């Protein structure tokens, strides 16, 4: 099974990943609604740090979901007809990728095996392997 | 007796120079930045580059050339032992 991988030494913090993710799923460039969130920042101006929220397909969200709304085959799928927006998946996600919005859970679906974030990452920090 | 005379005649028409490439031009040296090459004696910078396969007019972002650390015109002449540097165009500040 292919997974997203992130090499932070290559990341330039451009946030193009979040922009294209949101474009493909939400119809706008709106990183706050993206299903990937990678940022870099200077901590006290002294250290370059990274916040890397991306789905590693660990499956913890699926295991914890109390209504079995989440399935995992080649990627995560959330059945919004079943999802009650309880937020257990959001709290359990170790990479803080999952977002609850309007009482539904939104999780990366790897763009069905052809992730847009990987295609745009200009320095190839994001790969799918 | 004849051979040494002939070979010394031929040596007079070539000279050795170093060519250094900068930026994206290093691809013409397969990634090496510098080579010592033999070129026609007293040739121009343009001719020297042609002997190593660089036609500056065909390189879209060809910049400029310098000899021994000083910019010269592409048609200026070189001498033995010169260090010829070729740059791509660069911009910004």
């Amino acid at each position, binding site marked *: 099974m292919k997974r997203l991988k992130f090499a932070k030494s290559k990341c330039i913090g451009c946030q193009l990943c979040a*922009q294209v993710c949101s474009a493909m799923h*939400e119809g706008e*460039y709106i*990183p*706050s609604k993206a299903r990937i969130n990678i940022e870099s920042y*200077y901590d006290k101006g002294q250290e370059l740090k990274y916040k890397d929220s991306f789905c590693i397909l660990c499956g913890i969200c699926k295991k914890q979901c109390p209504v079995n709304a989440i399935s995992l085959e080649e990627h995560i799928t959330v059945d919004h007809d079943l999802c009650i927006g309880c937020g257990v998946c959001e709290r359990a996600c170790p990479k803080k990728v999952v977002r609850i919005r309007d009482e539904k859970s939104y999780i990366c679906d790897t763009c069905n095996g052809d992730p847009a974030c990987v295609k745009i990452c200009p320095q190839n920090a994001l790969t799918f392997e | 007796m004849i051979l040494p005379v002939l070979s010394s005649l031929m040596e007079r028409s070539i000279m050795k120079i170093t060519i250094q490439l900068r930026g994206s031009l290093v691809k013409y040296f397969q990634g090496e930045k510098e080579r010592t090459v033999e070129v026609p004696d007293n040739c121009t910078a343009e001719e020297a580059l042609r002997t190593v396969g660089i036609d500056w007019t065909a390189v879209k972002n060809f910049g400029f050339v310098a000899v021994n650390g*000083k910019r010269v015109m592409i048609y200026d002449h070189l001498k033995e032992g010169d260090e010829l540097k070729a740059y791509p165009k660069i*911009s910004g500040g």
Partner: protein
Amino acid sequence: MTMLGYQNKVLRVDLTKKGAKTEPLRMDWAEKYIGSKGLAIKYMYEELKPGIDPLSPENKLFLTTGPMTGTPIPCSGKLSIAAKSPATGTMNDCSIGGHSALQIKYAGYDMIILEGALKEPGYLLIEDGNVQFKDAKVLWGRGSHETEMLLAEKHGHDHSILSIGPAGENLVPMACINSDYYRQAGRGGIGAVMGSKNLKAIVIKGTGGVKIPDIVESTKKITQILREDTLQEDNTFIYDFGTTAFLEACSDGGILPRKNFSDVTDENWTKYNGEVLLEKKVGKRGCGSCGLGCGNFLKFGDAIVEGPEYESIAVAGPNAGIDDPEAIVKFNQVADDMGLDTISAGDTINFAMEMTEKGVHDFGIRFGDKEKQIEYLKLMAKREGVGADLALGVRKLAEKYGGEDYALHVKGLEYPQYEPRGSWGMSLAYAVSDRGACHMRAYAPNEEVFAASIPPYTAEGKGEMVYNLAVFNAIKFSLCICDFWATISFERMAELMTLVTGKEWTEQDMKDVGERVIHIARAFNQREGFDRKDDTIPKRLINEALQSGPAAGQKIPQEAFDDMLDQYYAVLGWDKNGIIPEDILCRL
């Protein structure tokens, strides 16, 4: 027609009354000037009456994005910050990197206009539609770095923070505005304008979005353009080297200045060149939506900076008679923290060094004094001791003490680090630049020095050359696209504009907008009383010949300079005095 890409909204903040309201964007102006640089200047031209004091509440700060901001169009993440300049009295527009442009756009605004002045030190907190006026008494007096650190602790690292240092607070005419610690809106005293409004910082977070037509297909197209155009090797050198790549080229090219522009080239450049500096690289960072990632994060002992860039290296290095890389990095770090433009601050210190050595006035510093150089930055930011004099800048310092013959500035903005005696067209570019001596309006070395066969030591054809370069940058910075996407064509710009707005833009449209932006910037200055007499060339370039490098023996004859000016005015349709005629003015 309604163009997409824009938010169609301007946030107007009244700092005097502590109020904020939104208004629609002037879409009719956007159709003529697009965004960023061009749109900011149009607003400035319409809203700032001639003759105002740039440090009074009547001046305004225009923080302007473009239609491409917040989209994945590569290199589109810069913010234009514009105001009338306290250093020159002309218009001024700066371009700052980092992420604030995207936050402003995602918060829902094309532009934020800051009017009036706070009665006491404060900072603005803008979170989407929520605007708050916060107390900054505790922050006032602190360096920009400490300020950013404290505000990030309070509001989060996901918020963008624009701040000034002590230099801006003390209204120093070379004060800058910082973001992301190491990015600046650098020149013309833009930081002093912010300081005159008692505004210590602006903290912004946006959670909204940007819409463009046919977004899924457009995103695929943009991805393709990124890979095929932006990421071609002629642009990616900036990832590997940053602008340190220019050092060798400028030294060989004979335009790397030494000791306050008294000569050029420096055989010691290998001591502080890209290879030496980049050995200390510990990280890489770019701006929002960047593809190229020019930022090199370096640690040289306790000298830490993202940079240094060519201008900072050259002004603090060879132009100061210094060749110590750690000292150069430290200079950059301290200047950033104090909130000082490295170019103007460095030039002023170098000028003081020469005046001291020539016995004109003892400023207590000579070429090569790297400790005093750092100390003087701090004194200048605080206007203390000798810093009170140095904070005046080169023009006023020369008026006060002398040294006019080697005071290099135009209209009061100090000279960037490209020596025009080695590239004559650059003297024209500096002279006619809209905000004083700036190298980013028309980048002449690209054609005259970094080109294989165009002769640099002649006036011939330079008017048209500078015009073409100026049009290219003017439109590019109005979209905006960062300088480092060097290979972008007018055709590509038009393609991207059409993609983002849904309106058909052509190559000719791009050139027309570029030229229009040059006219309106000039019109602003014209209204303030500027004309040919202010498009000057420093005396040193006319009177003294270079000693070293390929341009050894070169100086620029006054007639050659006059000829270049004549040519430039003629190409633009201005009269012999550099005045824009009425028929062009009324169309702006």
